């Protein structure tokens, strides 16, 4: 039984630090979901681990926080992409509902007139917000549908045969956008990361979460191929070649 093996071999302690190979991590995560007693033991282990860490804490100098604040406030975050179809559908449905609702209100005429004005103003604000979202979505659609965009499909190798990722590369505008919906879920300690091969050197393009429709990544000049590896959470400075799951020449 998995639980017995996990406890006897001390796999929870190794899972905590992210030391286990991917197959064993997935096995532990599955067991934690299915077995409340095992989950309680892991919760206790995490609580003790955190208590120990707080006891061993060393206060860093205040300049580290100042540097962090400068670094964060001067970085433009990557905007989370929303599903264009979802937004377009929401827009249409909301507009339809709003029109119907306005028709009903009109039939009640004057007694509701004041309230109708108020509601219309609110609705207008929501429509404007949706129009803004729609403009963002349209711009993203243009990014992936432009005449110079080259769509590519990266299939997983024998390590992850079910994996699939679609990349849209525009060399003219120096844009790379990927759809990661075809990548399987990974253990919590791992992430996907993309790399460009430039003269034999792998250059980091960014990390990827699965199930995302449009993720903008760094465009790398003179890239000869696109590659995906599985790396520790937060990403790696250098690719773990033995965990390469897909590659495609450009």
């Amino acid at each position, binding site marked *: 039984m998995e639980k017995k093996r996990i406890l006897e*071999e*001390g796999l929870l*302690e*190794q899972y*905590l*630090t*992210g*030391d286990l190979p991917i197959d064993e991590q997935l096995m532990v*995560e599955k067991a*934690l979901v299915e077995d409340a007693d095992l*989950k*309680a033991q*892991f*919760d*206790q*282990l*995490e*609580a*003790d*681990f*955190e*208590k*120990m*860490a*707080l*006891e*061993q*804490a*060393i*206060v*860093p*100098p205040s*300049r*580290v*926080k100042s*540097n*962090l*604040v400068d*670094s*964060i*406030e001067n*970085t433009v*975050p*990557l905007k*989370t992409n929303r599903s264009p179809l979802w937004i377009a559908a929401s827009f249409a449905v909301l507009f339809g509902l709003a029109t119907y609702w306005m028709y009903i209100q009109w039939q009640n005429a004057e007694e509701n007139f004041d309230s109708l004005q108020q509601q219309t103003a609110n609705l207008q604000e929501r429509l404007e917000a949706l129009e803004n979202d729609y403009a963002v979505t349209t711009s993203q659609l243009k990014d992936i549908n432009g005449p110079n965009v080259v769509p590519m499909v990266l299939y997983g190798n024998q390590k992850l045969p079910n994996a699939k990722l679609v990349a849209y590369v525009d060399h003219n505008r120096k844009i790379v956008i990927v759809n990661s919906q075809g990548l399987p879920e990974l253990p*919590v*300690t791992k*992430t996907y990361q993309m790399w460009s091969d430039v003269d034999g050197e792998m250059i980091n393009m960014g*990390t990827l*979460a699965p199930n995302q429709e449009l993720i903008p990544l760094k465009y790398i000049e003179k890239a000869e191929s696109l590659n995906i590896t599985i790396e*520790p*959470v*937060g*990403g*790696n*400075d*250098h690719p773990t070649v033995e965990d390469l799951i897909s590659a495609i020449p450009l």
Partner: protein
Amino acid sequence: MGADLADIQLINRLIEGDNDALYQLYDKYSGALYGVVLRMCQNEAEAQDLLQETFVKIWSSITQYDASKGRFYTWAYRIARNTTLNSLRSKKNLIQNDDLGVYVNETEENQQDFSLLKGSLKKLEPHHQKAIALVYYQGYTHKEAHEVMGVPLGTFKSYVRQALKQLRKTYANELVWLWCIFETIA
């Protein structure tokens, strides 16, 4: 039990773009993470850079954190540990490939030993202390650490388990003492 509710609220704010939530997480956990990073790399300037890099990674990857799979500190610890190991590996390559002088200067600079543990860990038996230090504060995997200690892997794993069990007892006793003091005062 699992993830801390206050942490989850901060994380939700952070996901919505409120950077102040990150700075509150920093205030709460930077000491614990700095304790890990500094003990691993043994160099204050480098540890400070790595701590900053860790929190930038936390900020940029926060949507990947899944509270149902564990506490925020555990997730942040893994990022800090991987970031530090990456940096140490790059440095090791530099020393081996390019400039042997770097190694000499470094040992001269790092006179202070940051690896010392404190508090309840000091009450553990020496072999238990060492097992915890190797795995949680020096970045060794269990497979590497048992070789460093010169004991079989199974024995090493039981050292870690016994040490954590002992720590749990110590923390529980501390709570009982605190309760007794509180009752006496009240």
